[in-house]
């Protein structure tokens, strides 16, 4: 079989024909598909991803916030526990007068009231 025989054989196979109304309606069908693709999705399909994103972002914000804000508290707690003996002495020496205990980078501070 040479090339022209093969070409003739390939071309001899006709395309299956479609009814005339198919060709008439096909462009409108494409247009309908385009309109459908362009129209906004129904709310029920949109809320879930939006909710998931908002929930995710809020949760991440909460975790970051807790991590950031828990650091000073931890530092104060550690400072107080490290000076537990000193705090106990002060509480014994000034029963009912110690009002506030506070720790910062300069050390431990406390507020003593004049009256119980």
């Amino acid at each position, binding site marked *: *079989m040479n090339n022209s025989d093969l*070409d003739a054989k390939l071309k001899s196979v006709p395309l*299956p*024909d479609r009814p005339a109304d198919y*060709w008439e309606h096909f462009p409108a069908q*494409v*247009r309908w598909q*385009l309109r459908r693709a362009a129209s906004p999705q129904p709310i029920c399909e949109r809320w879930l991803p939006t909710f998931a994103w908002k929930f995710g972002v809020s949760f991440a914000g909460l975790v970051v916030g807790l991590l950031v804000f828990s650091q000073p508290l931890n530092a104060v707690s550690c400072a107080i526990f490290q000076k537990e003996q000193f705090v106990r002495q002060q509480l014994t020496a000034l029963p009912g007068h110690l009002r506030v205990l506070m720790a910062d980078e300069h050390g431990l501070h406390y507020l003593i009231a004049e009256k119980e």
Partner: protein
Amino acid sequence: MADADAELVLQTQKGSPAAFEELVRQHQRMIHSLTFRMTGSLADAEDLAQETFIRAYAQIGAFRGSAKFSTWLYRIAVNTCLNWKQSEARRFQLHANCAEEISVQHRNGENSSADTQANQQVQEALLKLPAKQRAAIVLTIYDGLNHAEAAQVLGCSETTVSWRVFSARRKLKRWLSKNGGAR
């Protein structure tokens, strides 16, 4: 680009859906023909033709008219067909569907049963080709594009097209001769 196409493309780019509908009307048979030769299934050919026009509409803003509109559309259609995935089971089913569709066409007595069988063999042989070789055959033999035009559509070099056509012809000759397809 043909003047009529150019005007319709321009109107579509300006947002006229009616102009695009007219472009679809003018090129629908060409695209259906290509998608049918590539898939061997009327239903898949219809889906792929629709997909081609939907993609064309989405991309028409980027069409600058450096190539013919039909060449540009062919390229979209071929890429759509090449991306069309078919499992082995589906491929097997398609061979059966294709044979059925062709035989239904010729049941009206226009062709003899020998012709129908030969047509089935040809279509099955085409579907057995790797997709890129099939695309090269469809564009050059069925649609009459020269190798340079086919290369533009397929996004490869002329040498690659020539090789694909050569390789596909060799396989088709072997399969169709072996099947006793010569009439």
